[in-house]
C-alpha cells in the first residue's frame, strides 16, 4: 500500500513535467521534419558540410581556433564564388573530445542535417567513435587533427590530412642514434597524440640500442618542477619533450629556466613548428632537434593564412605549426573534392584516396590507400630561434 505522502502539489508538477517532455519530443520532430524538407529547392541552395569540434571541456583550447580557421576558409571560398557556384555552409557541432558526444554530433549531422561529408573528429577519440556511425550511413569523415595510429586503415570512409604519429617518432629516433645518444630522458603528456609519438620513438630508439627514462604527466598538470628535477638527475644524453599543446610546452620551458636546467633538447612538431616559442626561449633551444611536417614559413598559402587570420580575429593563429594549416587545407580539399565528384559521401571517400601532391598551406598532401597522409617528417635543428632543415 504505497502511502501517497503529498497532496495535490505533486500531481500539478507531474502534469507540467509530462508537458515539458512532450514539447521536447514534438519540438525535435518538427525541427527534424523542417530540416528534411529544405532539400528540394533550387540549385542556389548552399552545400551543407558537417563539422565536429571540441568546444567545451579539455578539448576546447584546440576547438575554438579550429572553428575560426574553418569559418575563415569558408568565407574565402564563398567570396570567390563558392563550390561550383553554390555557397558552402558549415554546420558546427560540439563533440567535446569524447566518444559519446562525438557519436551524438555525428548522428545529428547525418540524420537531421543530411550532410554527406563531415569535417571532423578533432581528437582521435572523436574520430574513432564516429567512424562506424559515418561508415554505416556512407558519409565521408575527414579529420584534420586526429593522429592516433589506431585510425590507420580504420574504414574506407575515414581519411585525414594530419600525419600519424608513427612517422615523426621514427625520424627523431634515428637522428638521436646518429648523434650517438645512448640514454634519453622523455617527458610525455598523457594524450593519444603524445603517446603515439612516444611509442614510435621508443620502438625505434630501443631497437637501435638506446634506453629511455620516461615520465608521464596528466594533461591538467601545472607544476612540472619535481618531474623535471627527477629527469635532470637521470643525466641522460638528451631530453625529449613530448607535449600535446603549446601552453604545456611553454610552462615546461619556463620551469626549466627556473630550475636552471639546459639539457640538449628534442621535441615533437607541436613545439618544432611554433616560431614564436622558439624565439622566446632561444638560448634554451639552441641545437634542439625536432621533426617538421608542416608550415615551411615561406609557403605562400601558409603566410596568407597567418595574415588573414590576424586581420579577421585580431589574434595570432594558435597551433600555427600543426593544426592550423591542415584545418585550412581540409576545407579547400573538400571544395576540390565536391567539384570533382559532387557532394556524395561514398564518391568523396573514394576520391580522397586519389589525392596526390595537392598543394596546400600545409605543403604537398598525398592520401594513401589506408586513409593516412603520406609524407614523413623532415628532420630539423633549431638555429638561433629558427627551425632549419637538418642537412
Amino acid at each position, binding site marked *: 500500500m*504505497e502511502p501517497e*505522502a*503529498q497532496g495535490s502539489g*505533486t500531481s500539478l*508538477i*507531474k502534469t507540467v*513535467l509530462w508537458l*515539458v*517532455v512532450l514539447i*521536447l519530443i514534438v*519540438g*525535435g520532430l518538427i*525541427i*527534424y521534419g523542417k530540416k528534411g524538407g529544405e532539400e528540394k529547392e533550387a540549385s542556389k541552395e548552399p552545400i551543407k558540410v558537417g563539422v565536429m569540434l571540441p*568546444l*567545451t*571541456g*579539455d578539448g*576546447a583550447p584546440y576547438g*575554438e581556433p579550429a*572553428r575560426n580557421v574553418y569559418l575563415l576558409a569558408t568565407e574565402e571560398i564563398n567570396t570567390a564564388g563558392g563550390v561550383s557556384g553554390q555557397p558552402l555552409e558549415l554546420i*558546427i*557541432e*560540439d563533440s*567535446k*573530445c*569524447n*566518444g*559519446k*558526444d562525438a*557519436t*551524438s554530433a555525428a*548522428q*545529428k549531422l*547525418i*540524420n*537531421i542535417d543530411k550532410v554527406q561529408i563531415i569535417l571532423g573528429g578533432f581528437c*582521435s*577519440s572523436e574520430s*574513432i*567513435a564516429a567512424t*562506424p556511425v559515418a561508415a554505416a*550511413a556512407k558519409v565521408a569523415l575527414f579529420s584534420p587533427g586526429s593522429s*592516433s595510429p*589506431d585510425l590507420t586503415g*580504420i574504414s574506407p570512409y575515414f581519411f585525414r590530412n594530419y600525419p600519424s604519429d608513427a612517422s615523426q617518432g621514427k625520424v627523431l629516433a634515428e637522428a638521436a642514434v646518429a648523434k650517438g645518444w645512448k640514454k634519453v630522458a622523455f617527458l610525455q603528456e*598523457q*594524450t*593519444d597524440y*603524445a*603517446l*603515439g609519438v612516444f611509442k614510435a620513438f621508443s620502438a625505434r630508439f630501443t631497437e637501435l640500442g638506446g634506453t629511455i627514462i620516461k615520465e*608521464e604527466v*596528466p594533461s591538467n598538470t601545472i607544476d612540472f618542477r619535481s618531474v623535471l628535477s627527477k629527469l635532470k638527475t637521470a643525466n641522460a644524453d638528451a631530453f625529449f619533450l613530448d607535449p600535446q599543446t603549446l601552453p604545456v610546452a611553454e610552462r615546461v620551458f619556463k620551469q626549466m629556466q627556473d630550475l636552471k636546467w639546459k639539457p640538449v633538447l628534442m621535441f615533437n612538431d607541436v613545439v618544432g613548428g611554433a616560431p614564436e616559442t622558439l624565439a622566446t626561449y632561444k638560448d634554451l633551444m639552441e641545437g634542439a632537434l625536432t621533426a617538421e611536417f608542416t608550415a615551411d614559413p615561406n609557403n605562400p598559402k601558409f603566410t596568407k593564412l597567418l595574415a588573414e587570420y590576424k586581420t579577421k580575429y585580431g589574434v595570432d593563429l594558435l597551433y600555427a605549426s600543426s593544426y592550423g594549416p591542415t584545418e585550412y587545407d581540409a576545407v579547400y580539399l573538400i571544395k576540390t573534392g565536391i567539384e570533382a565528384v559532387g557532394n556524395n559521401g561514398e564518391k568523396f571517400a573514394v576520391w580522397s584516396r586519389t589525392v596526390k601532391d595537392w598543394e596546400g598551406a600545409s605543403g604537398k598532401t598525398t592520401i594513401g590507400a589506408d586513409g593516412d597522409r603520406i609524407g614523413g617528417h623532415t628532420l630539423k635543428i633549431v638555429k638561433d630561434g629558427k627551425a632549419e632543415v637538418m642537412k
Partner: protein
Amino acid sequence: MEYLTHLAVLVGIYSILALSLNLVLGYAGIISVTHAAFFGLGAYTSAILTTVYDLNFFLAALCGVLVAAIISLFVGTVLSKFRGDFVALGSVGFNVIVWSVFLNVQELTRGPLGIPGIGRPNLEFGIWNYEFSSNVSFLVLSVIFVALVYFLCQFIEKSSFGRALKAIREDEEALQVFGYRTLHYKLAVFVIGAGLASIAGALFASYITFIDPSTFTINESIFLLSVVILGGLASNRGALIGALALVLLPEFLRFVGFPSDIAAQMRQVVYGVMLIVLMLYRPQGLVGEYKL
C-alpha cells in the same frame, strides 16, 4: 529516425545510471560522487574481455558486475566510516584514484589511447546467432535492461529493505537502537548500485564501440548527481525523468539558435544555474519525495 533512436539508447544507458545512483543517494542518503568510476569499471572490464579475450558480451558484462561489486564492497566499507560531507569528499577521492588507474595502467587499458573496436553484443543459441548491430536492435536491448533495472529498483523500494534504507537516510543511529546492523544495509545498497552502474558501462562500451578515461572523470559523477537531483530523490520515476531531461537538453540546445561559439559554454551555465535554482526552490527535485 536514426538520430532519435541514438538519443533513446543514450537516455536508456543514463536511466540505468540514474536509477542505480538514486538507490544509493535517494534511498540510503549516501552522497556518492564516485558513480562514474563503477560506470567505467563496467565499461573497461567488458571492453577488455570482449576485445582481448573475445568473450560474449553478456558474459563480459556479468564479469564487469562482479569486478564493480567487489571494488564497491571495499569502497563502501571505507566510506561508511566517514560522517557527513566527508562521505562526498572521500568518494571524490576514489573516483580520482580509479580514473588514474584507467589512465596509467596502460598495459591493461591502453591509457589515453582508449579501447577502440568494441564489438556489438550477439546472442548465440546453437546455430542461431543474432547480432545487435543496428541502432534499433540495440535500443530494444537497452530498453529491456532499463525495464529490468527499473523493476528491481521498484522491488527494492517496496520491500522492507527499501523502508530500512530510508530510515537509515533519516536517522541511522536511532535505527541501530532498534536492532538494525545499518553497515550491512549501506554496503548492500552500495554494491547493488555499483553492479547496476557497471551494466550501464558494458552497454555504453559496446554501443559507442570506443571508450577512454576522459568519460569517467569526477565531472561525469557530478553530472549523474545533478540528473538524480533534478529528477527527484527517492523516486524511480524521478531518476528516469532526470535522465531524459539532462540527456536531451544538450541535444535540444543544438537546435536553439545560440551562436555556435558560446552555445557549448551556455550549456554549462544552464547546468550551474539549474543546480542553484533546484537547491533554492525545489530540493526534492521535479517528482522526488526526499528533500535533501
